[in-house]
């Protein structure tokens, strides 16, 4: 690997500099920016949206999507647009928190495995294999149920079950870096381990971490929705995507299609956006592709 790739003087996430260079990363930056803006708007909408849309209104129940109610209303006359936006925000918030906690575990275990010797490595690898070998959904239900359900249960369950993949990646990355030419050379030059970690390891590991984190979001959100749908997650009266989908199931057979289709599409859309965001970040941040 070429050591010049990583010039320590230049911050690796200097987006504006890359923007001007007009390379392949330009469209990636653009779309990532748009997506970030979308999420910002979504959260702003969820935060500032008036709660009156959630109030029970028997006079206006089961209205199909119209100009006044773009997503229609449900069987209690609650505005489905408000419920969907609030639900998305809630699901996203919980997903984000869970993914964030999970990635912290990942990076801690990954670094420990790679640097603290063979015994620690063995323990961490066994743990990784153990969690990966257990069916995901079963593990999620088990943990969420044991933690008494609710938001806490979901966050803990998703946190505890999603770290192994990222741990493996980070461990492999560090192991590879330790044996790479430029690190060995730095050691010969008498650089301290801290200096090496700061200037050689971090620029390689951080992008992996950020991308891993972003790509973990969709998993976390989907699993949060799944758990809630199965009745092991969040409270039924507060909107969240899993609840909206579970509730609307009984209405699917009765013709109120908008109760399931629109929140469902919103969920798929959001998750896909995260996926695109993650891939764009990969293009932008990764040392191996950032110069293409």
């Amino acid at each position, binding site marked *: 690997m070429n050591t010049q790739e990583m010039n320590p003087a230049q911050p690796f996430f200097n987006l504006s500099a890359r923007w001007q260079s007009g390379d392949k990363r330009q469209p990636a930056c653009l779309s990532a920016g748009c997506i970030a803006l979308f999420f910002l708007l979504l959260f702003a909408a969820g935060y500032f949206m008036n709660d009156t849309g959630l109030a*029970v209104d028997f006079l206006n*129940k089961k209205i199909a999507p119209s100009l006044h109610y773009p997503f229609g209303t449900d069987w209690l*006359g609650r505005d489905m647009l408000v419920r969907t936006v609030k639900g998305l925000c809630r699901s996203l918030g919980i997903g984000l928190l869970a993914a964030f906690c999970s990635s912290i575990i990942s990076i801690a275990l990954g670094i420990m495995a790679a640097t603290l010797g063979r015994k620690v490595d063995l323990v961490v690898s066994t743990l990784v294999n153990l969690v990966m070998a257990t069916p995901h959904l079963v593990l999620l239900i088990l943990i969420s149920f044991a933690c*008494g359900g609710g938001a806490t249960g979901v966050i803990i369950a998703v946190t505890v079950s999603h770290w192994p993949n990222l741990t493996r990646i980070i461990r492999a990355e560090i192991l590879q870096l330790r044996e790479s030419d430029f690190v060995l050379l730095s050691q010969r030059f008498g650089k301290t381990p801290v200096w090496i970690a700061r200037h050689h390891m971090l620029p390689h590991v951080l992008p992996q971490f950020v991308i891993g984190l972003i790509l973990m979001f969709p998993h976390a959100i989907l699993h949060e929705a799944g758990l809630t749908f199965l009745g092991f997650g969040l409270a*039924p*009266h507060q909107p969240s995507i899993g609840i909206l989908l579970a509730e609307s*199931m*009984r209405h699917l*057979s009765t013709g109120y299609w908008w109760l399931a289709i629109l929140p469902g599409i919103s969920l798929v859309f959001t998750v896909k956006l995260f996926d695109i965001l993650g891939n764009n970040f990969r293009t932008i941040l990764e040392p191996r592709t950032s110069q293409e």
Partner: protein
Amino acid sequence: MHHIIRFLVLFSLCCTPLLSGGSHALASSESKPPDTLVLAIGGEDKTGYDPTLGWGRYGSPMFQSTLLKFDADMKIVNDLATAYSLSKDGLVWTIDIRHDVKFSNNTPLTAEDVAFTFNTAAKSGGLVDLAHMAVAKALDRNRVQIALQENDSTFINRLITLGIVPKNFHGPDYPRKPIGSGPYMLEEWNEGQQMIVKANPYYYGAQPFFKRIVFLYTPEDTSFAAAKAGQVQMAAVPAMLAKQHVPGMTIHAVKSVDNRGLMFPTVPDTGKKTDKGYSIGNNVTADPAIRRAITIAIDRKALVQGVLEGYGRPAYGVCDGLPWDNPNNSFQDNDQAGAATLLQKAGWIDSDGDGIREKKGLKAEFTIIYPANRSERQYMALSVADTLKKIGIQANVEEKPDFDEIQKVMHKDVVVFGWGAHDPMELYQLYNTKFAGVEYNNVGYYSNPQVDENLEKAISARNLEEAIPFWQAAQVYVKEDAPWAWMVNLDHTYFVNDHLDIGKSQIEPHGHGWPITANIHEWKWKK
């Protein structure tokens, strides 16, 4: 996992008619009576079908027969009994039973069996309410005598609900293999899935029209899908689905006393705890003004129309429309102005302008608990919370995954509960100081000496008729104190095949599904 299974079954059922080319696949053969009736109305009792362990409390025991029964108009008529009398002091029941009754294994039913059933049930530790019974004994082959320890005007209800089991064939495996003298006998039972029953050839009444009946234990949505696919002749569905159209089937709505209400803790929180360590009392709902204001602020008609799709009626008491109900229980509701005045007078004033009233620094705020899997209770809680906001009371709605969790908070939080029985005993247990904190009875620790006095007079009356004035008098005080805000009585809704004649259904108790089988031996197939 429930949802997955439900979804798969629902999905496959939805697909079936599509694949077979239209949902009328079964409609063509429907003019010919089916050999087997398939019903998706629930009613499984996990503990089994032993009346001495409580089977048959709600609705008929079906495998067994009872001494007396209610007819469709709620009149008490003979079933096994041919005559019954109560001694002057109200302590000894003497009952003559039919000579010609046989159990489904071709052994005769005698007074010995009746005495055995009552004595066994009394030992079952509260599963059957026979606390006032002393002993039952057979006087001769067809006459039984039941002695009471003290007067109990509700005792006749035990003669109506307790199915008679055979003395010589009653053992530990009886709940799984019941033998009785009812119109049907158990053929096969796959727990959690289905039960198949066949006609009892030794039944003393007219042989039932349907020789074989399958009961499917499916969740409501699955039952509805099965009805749509033409796979069942009857399905119990929630009111929400009752507005739907199912070809070849008509909705049959049965009035019930199955009610839903808000239970209020009526004592302040003084740090007292139950034996299990759960806190007792709520400072806000301990004020009768708050409870009274809530009862008159609730819009019951809107709840019936909105949550129950019109399949129900407003509830003002726990036993609306039953003989012991006080007709003066009803009042003008949806009166938010009146409720506000009431709160104002009692000193609940919004002094800091946040829309919620306070009194001496205490905010008019409490939590309404509902069980997470009961959607209609959730919607009622949400709807009531919105109404209460208008009169300056903040009600936070919260779910609990099951009743074990509800038990932990039910003495300190408001809970959406459901009751409703064909028995005034329920009044006695709900409002009596004696039952404060005993199981689910008087969980709000309601206590009023005048209520207690009338309840005692009612229960120790000689018979049901003499007790009624006392039952009604007790409810006068209850109405003033408002320990509960009763909201609605449900109508139980069933999709019934157009060819199935199920006669006239009686007003149903708590429990949607099984009670409709009370007259199952009279069901017919019509052209």
